[in-house]
């Protein structure tokens, strides 16, 4: 834990050092402010807005499915000595989920809305 914390500090330290160094090496240290890149046109509105992510159904399926990983890792290290029963159970469980995924695919969950 301590070494992880140390690494976190050290790596962000490097980033900070680069940023400080850049203030020195850059032709000017003061940032300038511009409008966003629109092929040479001025913006008609701010880009930050209610952005329509058209894969939201897929993200719902994802959120449900990824809870499964919670069990997968602890299971992975004990399956070797728990024997065939553990394999059957886990993959029965996964098969059920994959069937749900196949059904979701037919409903167009992985398509753009």
């Amino acid at each position, binding site marked *: *834990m301590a*070494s*992880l914390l*140390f*690494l*976190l500090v*050290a*790596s*962000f330290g*490097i*980033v*900070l050092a*680069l*940023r400080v*160094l*850049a203030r020195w*090496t*850059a*032709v000017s*240290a*003061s*940032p*300038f*402010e*511009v*409008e*966003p*890149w*629109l092929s040479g046109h001025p913006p008609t509105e*701010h*880009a*930050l807005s209610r*952005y329509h*992510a058209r*894969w939201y159904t*897929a*993200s719902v*399926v*994802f959120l449900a499915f*990824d809870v499964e*990983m919670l069990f*997968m*890792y602890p299971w*992975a*290290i*004990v*399956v*070797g*000595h728990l*024997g*065939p029963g*553990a*394999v059957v159970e*886990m*993959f029965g469980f996964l098969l059920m989920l*994959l069937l749900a*995924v*196949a059904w979701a*695919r037919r409903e167009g969950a*992985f398509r753009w809305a």
Partner: protein
Amino acid sequence: MADSLPLVYVVPVMVGLAVVSLSVAGLSSALEARDRGLSVGSGLTLPLRETARLMRQRPRRTVSADRLLWRSASSAVIPLAVLIVAFVPLGAHALVDHPLGLVWINALDVVAWAVMWLLGWGVNSVTGLVGGYRFLALALGYELPLMFALTAPAIAAGSLNLAEISATQDGLWFVVWTPVAFVAYCWGVLGFSVRPPMDPGAGSDVNGGILAELAAVDRLLVLAGRYALLVAGSAAAVPLFLGGGAGPLLPGWGWVLIKTILVSGLLVLAGRRLPTLRPDKLLELGWVVVLPLVVAQDLVVSVIAVATN
């Protein structure tokens, strides 16, 4: 954790990561120079010159940008790569030798979701926005296969500790009997490092996406960070699939280094060979083809694990 390498090793590990990242970037631009009919040598040194160019540039920001989120995101890419490498055993031990090293690597690759989306969001530009959301759409496709791919070596070794996983592979590397997991893992590495062909979030076809508004040191941190993530992901593949530090003559860390360079070099080559995989093409493929294949791979591995135990 008692077996972690002393903290002084942080320095060589970070220097190593930087050198390998620069070399891989050099390989990429050397190949491009060759394709353009220019001298390969000028391509090899391009990353260094590009670094100098960006360090000289005046910093730039966009109007009404969320600078806190944008700056945090561009600053976080390199630390993310460093932390992943910290869990990779260089021989017998890693900088952080944690019993759950594998889960940590998974957790860190997920942080890339936040970082890349925030890079696109913070800038207040349509281009960045489209890029960030495209990255997330792609991530929904590659993440589950990546997670199941990570599970395969864990089942085979009966451990989540990377040093133990790599030690279990004496004689037979996991890549030999878990090839599907290895490929799915590499696919995920390209995904979270936003490198081609998994780089629609930064593609030319969306005017540069999350990279479009980055200049000066911000751009340097992200471009270098993408290579560092690629190298870090490749380094993690070594204990997981490629026998860790096993190999004749050289010390363990030497083999880890060589294998890391080979894997990241191969991923760069694959990136040049394949066109950008757009999320609208890939999302469904990830779920209905790759995911079942990787689950089947895990099934094979666990049957073997049970049979040999």
